[in-house]
């Protein structure tokens, strides 16, 4: 595996939640580097900062202190608009509870991600064609017109993966993507995740699944807001 440079890097990353006397120190100085194309798992007990780290890396939240670099660019000082542009073009998110827009079809959910990327202006026809290709990739072309509530959990998550790939991002951030699935669906979803990783994407997964963690090229353990086990 050729990992030429770190696509993601954090320096002294801290996150403090709350105000006044009630404060939670979610991250206490996390320094990590994730090489381009690495299959990375973040593990650790619940409530110890895994999702916070993922949100900071993805630009969904801003750190209290420290820096996050995406492709060498410090994103901590960027405006909300520029952060949104980075999320649209460079990062794809997959959530535990799928987070599909319930009033849109599977195809339209993927098209929405394309619509929100200001860097690429696609016609409606081009959007549809590309979204159909992505649905085919996750084996759900026959469910293009189905609303999320008409799909099983595994199918919804596969649509969610297709949506994350809509703008051909370099990085895929997944927060417990199989945490809400049965064993069969979990197996299917993981197969698609591995397939996506093989296309050269950097995949970072927050997981409690030990067997998945064992397959990681890079394993990070977050405990009490610190990165304890960093195995490059």
């Amino acid at each position, binding site marked *: 595996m050729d990992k030429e440079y770190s696509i993601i890097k954090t320096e002294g990353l801290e996150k403090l939640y709350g105000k006044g006397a009630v404060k939670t120190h979610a991250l206490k100085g996390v320094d990590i580097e994730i090489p381009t194309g690495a299959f990375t798992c973040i593990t650790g007990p619940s409530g110890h900062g895994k999702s916070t780290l993922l949100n900071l890396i993805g630009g*969904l939240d801003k750190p209290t202190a420290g820096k996050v670099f995406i492709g060498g660019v410090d994103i901590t000082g960027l405006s909300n*608009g520029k952060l*949104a*542009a980075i999320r649209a073009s460079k990062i794809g998110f997959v959530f535990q509870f799928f*987070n599909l827009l319930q*009033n849109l079809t599977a195809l339209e959910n993927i098209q929405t991600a*394309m*619509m*929100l990327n200001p860097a690429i202006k696609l016609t*409606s026809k081009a959007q549809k064609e590309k979204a159909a290709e992505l649905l085919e990739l996750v084996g759900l072309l026959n469910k293009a017109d189905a609303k999320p509530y008409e799909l099983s959990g595994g199918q919804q998550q596969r649509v969610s993966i297709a949506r994350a790939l809509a703008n051909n991002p370099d990085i895929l951030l997944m927060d417990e993507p199989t945490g809400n699935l049965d064993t069969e669906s979990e197996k299917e979803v993981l197969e698609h995740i591995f397939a996506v990783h093989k296309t050269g994407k950097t995949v970072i997964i927050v997981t409690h699944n030990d067997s998945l963690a064992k397959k990681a090229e890079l394993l990070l353990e977050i405990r009490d807001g610190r990165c304890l086990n960093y195995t490059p």
Partner: protein
Amino acid sequence: MNILKLVARNLFRKKGRFVFTLLGISIGMASFVALLSMGENMQSVVKAQAESLGASFMIMPENICIYNQMAIVTGETISESMEYKVFEDLTAVNDVTIIPHLTQKTSIKDKPSVVAGILPRETYAFKVWEMNEGVFFESDDQNAVVVGIDFAETRNLRVGETVTVKGEQLPVIGILAKTQGNDDMTMFAPLTVVQRLFNKDGYISYMSARVKDMSKIEAYEDAILKIANVQVATNDKLLESVLSIIGSVNSTLRLIAGVALIAAAFGIINTMMTAVYERRREIGILCALGGRAGTIFKVFLIESGVYGLLGGCVGVVAGYVVSVFAAPIINREGLDMLKGVSAEASIDIKLVLTAVIVSFVISILSGLYPALKASKLTPVEAVSYG
């Protein structure tokens, strides 16, 4: 996929809420259109009625108040009266044609009615009337009535029938052709007959006057005032007084319409705020996918604007329908001073456009705060919600 399609999907996903919110703004706009259209119409109807009087000026009792002036314009009875002798004295003024009127209230076929005592021959010539059916009075003391065409229609009266006035039966000998004025809603009898029936011997209500040369109208006024203690008002002056009253009624109607609109605006704010709270996760998803604050703002604002546009259109239609049904009730039950003012509804393109624009602008303004709230949500706060 584009923002408008996304907005459409958002609006129609909860059909019940969509319909009720739309009803809120539609009802507000309907009140706005109905009240304004009736108000505007009152003005134009009063203008038309004043024109139909066919007089250059009116001669009224000295102490007549503005409400009685309005009654003259709208064809109602007035509470004051003056002696018939005043009319006889004023006929001495050259180049002025004057006719007297004695208006009294009565009831014909259980409907409140106005009976006007006139000098038949002089009034027929002055008004340039034509007959639709039957004949006009043959003498100045004929015990009979001639009615306006709308009067006959609303009371289902035909020539040859009799009406009872103050216990006396009078035959209907004729129906006037349409005049487009109050005369259409009035019953006429010779002056002496009305004076006798209502115990008003020697009295009249007011006089209409027409001059040959309008440029000398002030001179005629002076000549009249030298002869008698009366009040003289040109048609325009009379109209101005009446319109000032209608204007204040209109202001009240506008105020009521304004309150209805404010209530509708709060309905939109409430709906949109509820939508923002309910859709926090969705907002978070859009943010995670790269949606900018401006995009989120736009989505919610357009949703709000659509409520305004649709609500405005539905409201305009409903408003006109309401005004069509409400006009007769207002005519029947309205304020005394407005009785006789037909509050008919007519479609005014300017009002239609104003209503739709007002509805749209109010909705956009109502949507600003919720849209701003939605766009200020941090992505992580929104996506973690629920």
